[in-house]
């Protein structure tokens, strides 16, 4: 038999002025199961709580109903009080008779009647409350960072700084990411390599950081605090532990016509290569698509010249498995492919380039050693047209619907750098809007216009036509002058939209994190939890969550690190006990619940059941991981058999409330 105590709070006059609290206590005292019903001035006060605690002990209560302010206010207070008196904290229910009764009603009679009904619903519910015990699960003290660009490096450094081991998985032979390809950074114009490479070195030298370059995540199992991740270390045919990065092999390799991806294919590299001088790890990699030794067994030059014997043509992909407490996704972005934009002649003329290609063309370590020359004839361009928003803000299948955010600023940077270095070059920028929200951003853009005399034209380029004289005919509109412009340019630079890296989507599936329709990872809350994914223990760093410039990326990377550190600091995680659970006897294993679970908390197991005729039958049934479940209840409604229920808000509890209210 239930022994329920009801405690009605006056909240000074906040409740008592419009609700006859004595009458409420009296009425609820007559409810079945209620053994004590009292009212008090301030139930949340020390003495009010003592009243509750004493009643629990004195009457040996099995449930407590507090009629007071919103549970969002003091539910925890009273749960703690109950726990202190030896009653399971989840046997406490709150009837909200302040915010949802006394404060909104004026008539004492009706407000009192409603307060009684709300109290009765809480009593009905508490009859069915079960004691819940919050579970705990241990936390593996190691973090995984997926992606070794500036976001991943920053996150790893911050986590390592806090004293935790952290692994970086980078799919390319070196960390550094897109930032390593960039020449200068806005709005300060400092050299990207000069600020990035020290961080790369720092990461490689930090004892706590373990870099798995040329590697990929192939499987993720487990949940917050307890992920098991399989990492594929792709064969690079060079023993990382032996290679000193001397580069002799790359000099001697006879296969020299491999498009150099680091330079956006604007020049060539050898089949065995180190992507760039400051690569980390500085280890050679053999490209099996071009290496003649790997393709037909004829060559072996690199092996012969290598003084430490690091070359290993027989190397195979290796898989390692590691446990992590937290995972940070930092998979970054890529410019979109421009094949569909015929009007800009990107595929027709080498002198039409993307902005990232321009970065390489202008970089001292780039194909032209830092001198800006037209890719076609290596002459100096005198007229350059920049086209903004190529593929951004598009409502069609060719492009992306969002603003890529970084293009306005880097285009101003490019224009300025060109005008600075080559004052004889005329620069036109065709824009739809110039977006410069950011510290010193607008000033930077104004400098390009005012100080460097870059021609900013509001309007879009309609067409670029390569001419026989090597010029590019640019046809565009100048909306403010209301005229069509025709410019014969030497080069055209396209600000291609950026998109999440292609590896992100399969990764999201493995991580059971959500993505938006553009394949950007979805944050747990767009305002308040911007660096966490909705899946506990998975954090988001950098452009994988949305377009970002370097300062924003670094800020988010550190924020994600802070969140990960917060998790790793704990020895164990206390789980919310109000989680879903499945009645295996009733579960059909139909997977409906799994499909609506935003957290991937539901898995299926084959379980053996004893059948009525004493045979056994193996059936697929759902199993909820209480450490991952957040208790939303979506699964309970998706389940047709009602096998899935939610602790603390069970079907029977909610229906008891409905019944009590409708009585």
């Amino acid at each position, binding site marked *: 038999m239930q022994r329920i105590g009801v405690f009605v709070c006056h909240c000074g006059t906040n409740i008592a002025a419009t609700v006859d609290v004595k009458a409420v206590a009296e009425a609820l005292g007559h409810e079945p199961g209620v053994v004590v019903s009292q009212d008090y001035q301030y139930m949340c006060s020390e003495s009010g709580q003592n009243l509750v605690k004493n009643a629990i002990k004195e009457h040996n209560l099995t449930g407590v109903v507090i009629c007071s302010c919103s549970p969002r206010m003091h539910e925890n207070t009273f749960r703690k009080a109950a726990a202190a008196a030896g009653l399971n904290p989840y046997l406490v229910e709150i009837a909200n008779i302040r915010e949802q009764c006394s404060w909104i009603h004026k008539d004492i009679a009706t407000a009192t009647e409603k307060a009684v009904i709300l109290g009765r619903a809480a009593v009905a519910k508490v009859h069915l409350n079960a004691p819940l015990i919050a579970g705990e699960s241990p936390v593996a003290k190691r973090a995984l960072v997926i992606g070794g660009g500036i976001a991943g490096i920053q996150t790893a450094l911050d986590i390592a700084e806090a004293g935790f081991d952290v692994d970086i998985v980078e799919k390319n032979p070196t960390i550094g990411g897109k930032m390593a390809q960039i020449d200068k950074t806005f709005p300060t114009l400092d050299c990207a390599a000069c600020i990035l490479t020290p961080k790369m070195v720092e990461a490689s030298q930090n004892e706590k950081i373990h870099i798995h370059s040329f590697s990929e995540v192939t499987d993720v199992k487990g949940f917050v605090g307890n992920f098991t991740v399989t990492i594929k270390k792709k064969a690079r045919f060079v023993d990382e532990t032996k290679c000193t990065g001397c580069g002799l092999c790359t000099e001697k390799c006879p296969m020299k016509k491999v498009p150099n991806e680091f330079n956006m294919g604007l020049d060539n590299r050898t089949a065995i290569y180190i992507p760039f001088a400051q690569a980390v790890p500085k280890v050679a990699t053999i490209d099996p698509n071009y290496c003649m030794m790997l393709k037909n067994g004829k060559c072996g030059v690199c092996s012969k010249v290598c003084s430490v014997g690091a070359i290993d043509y027989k190397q195979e992909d290796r898989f390692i498995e590691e446990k992590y407490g937290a995972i940070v996704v930092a998979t970054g972005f890529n410019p979109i492919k421009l094949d569909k934009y015929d009007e800009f002649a990107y595929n027709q003329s080498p002198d039409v380039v993307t902005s990232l290609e321009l970065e390489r063309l202008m970089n001292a370590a780039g194909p032209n050693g830092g001198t800006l020359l037209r890719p076609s004839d290596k002459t100096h361009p005198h007229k350059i047209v920049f086209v903004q928003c190529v593929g951004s803000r598009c409502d069609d299948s060719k492009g992306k619907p969002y603003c890529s955010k970084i293009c306005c600023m880097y285009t101003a940077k490019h224009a300025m750098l060109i005008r600075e270095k080559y004052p004889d070059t005329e620069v036109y920028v065709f824009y739809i809007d110039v977006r410069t929200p950011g510290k010193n951003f607008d000033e930077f853009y104004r400098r390009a216009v005012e100080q460097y005399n870059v021609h900013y034209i509001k309007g879009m380029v309609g067409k670029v036509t390569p001419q026989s004289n090597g010029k590019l005919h640019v046809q565009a509109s100048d909306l403010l002058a209301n005229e069509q412009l025709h410019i014969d340019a030497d080069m055209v630079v396209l600000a291609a939209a950026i998109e999440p890296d292609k590896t992100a989507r399969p990764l999201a599936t493995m991580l059971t994190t959500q993505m938006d329709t553009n394949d950007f990872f979805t944050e747990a809350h767009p305002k308040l939890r911007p660096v966490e994914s909705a899946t506990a223990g998975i954090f988001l760093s950098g452009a994988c969550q949305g377009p970002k410039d370097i300062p924003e990326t670094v800020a988010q990377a550190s924020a994600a690190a802070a969140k990960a550190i917060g998790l790793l600091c704990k020895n164990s995680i206390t789980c919310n006990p109000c989680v879903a659970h499945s009645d295996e006897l009733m579960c059909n294993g139909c997977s409906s619940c799994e499909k609506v679970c935003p957290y991937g908390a539901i898995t299926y197991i084959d379980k053996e059941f004893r059948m009525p*005729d004493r045979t056994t039958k193996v059936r697929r049934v759902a199993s909820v991981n209480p450490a991952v479940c957040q208790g939303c209840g979506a699964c309970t409604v998706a389940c047709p058999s009602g096998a899935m229920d939610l602790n603390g808000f069970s079907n029977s509890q909610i229906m008891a409330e409905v019944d009590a209210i409708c009585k």
Partner: protein
Amino acid sequence: MLRISIDKIDSLFAAISEKQALYIPADRADGAAEYKKYEAGMKLSEKLNTVRSAKDFFFPQTENLVEFKMEGKKIEVKDIRQESEDFVIFGVRACDARSFTILDKVYLVEPVDSFYKNRRDHGTVVTMACTRPSETCFCQAFGIDPTAPEGDCAVWSDGSYYYFKANTEKGQAFVDSVSSLLEDGDTAELDKTVAKTKEIMGRLPLAKLSTENFGGDKLNEYFNSDKWGELSESCLGCGTCTFVCPTCQCYDIKDFKTSDGIRRFRCWDSCMYSDFTKMAHGNPRLTQLERFRQRFMHKLVYFPANNNGEFGCVGCGRCLSKCPISMNIVKVMKALEVK
């Protein structure tokens, strides 16, 4: 014999329904027949039978038994039994008429079911002889003569007249109450109709179905028969057969929480349902095979064992035409029979 011309039947119905509630089989929009409370203009259905049997009048699908009023912590028990009104069911076929005899053996023996008795006492059963039996009919197997139905009063039709004959006191009272509308007449035409019907009965596909190898003493022959597995294999476990059956009598008692108390009611149960006779300790029939067997063993063996050889089936054929997968007592008897 007392009779009334078919075209005057409306006046007879009107006269009956003036004194007490009258129920007749009438056609619904979907073509099926069901018992409806007579209202002026309603036509007697020409269908052989209704989808639901006539047992509903004495043993309705749900019936309130008792109420508990609750106020705070006080509980008050309320007896809600009321004396039933008098009523007449007209046009009950011989099979359904026999079903009341079977139900009586369950509900009117000690302890008497007061709810059933109340209705039985107040209801007059007016039966109607069959003229156009269907291929699914097998009442003959249970010794029922559809041309001479039981019931308080039997009615025959020869196409021009309805003929009346009281079988019981209640039936006689009924005939007396409408005697002003009846006239005496010869039965020559009727005798021909009856003879014709009897001839058709002999030609029915199930005319040869016999119960001689079934009965109360056949428990050992059939309980462990290996046929049950095969027969029950396709059973969906729905309750169609039991709910259209005029003799199925099992019920479950349930409580319903109303706004101010509990209403205890009973409702039909089906031995085909997985929680049939489920008790605190568990369920004695855990598989569909056992539940399926229960239904047929009950009708063909257990019931006769306890009721002087009377079978728990009247051969109305409803389960034959309504079972979703066409598994029925005839197929069971034929498959099971050990000669």
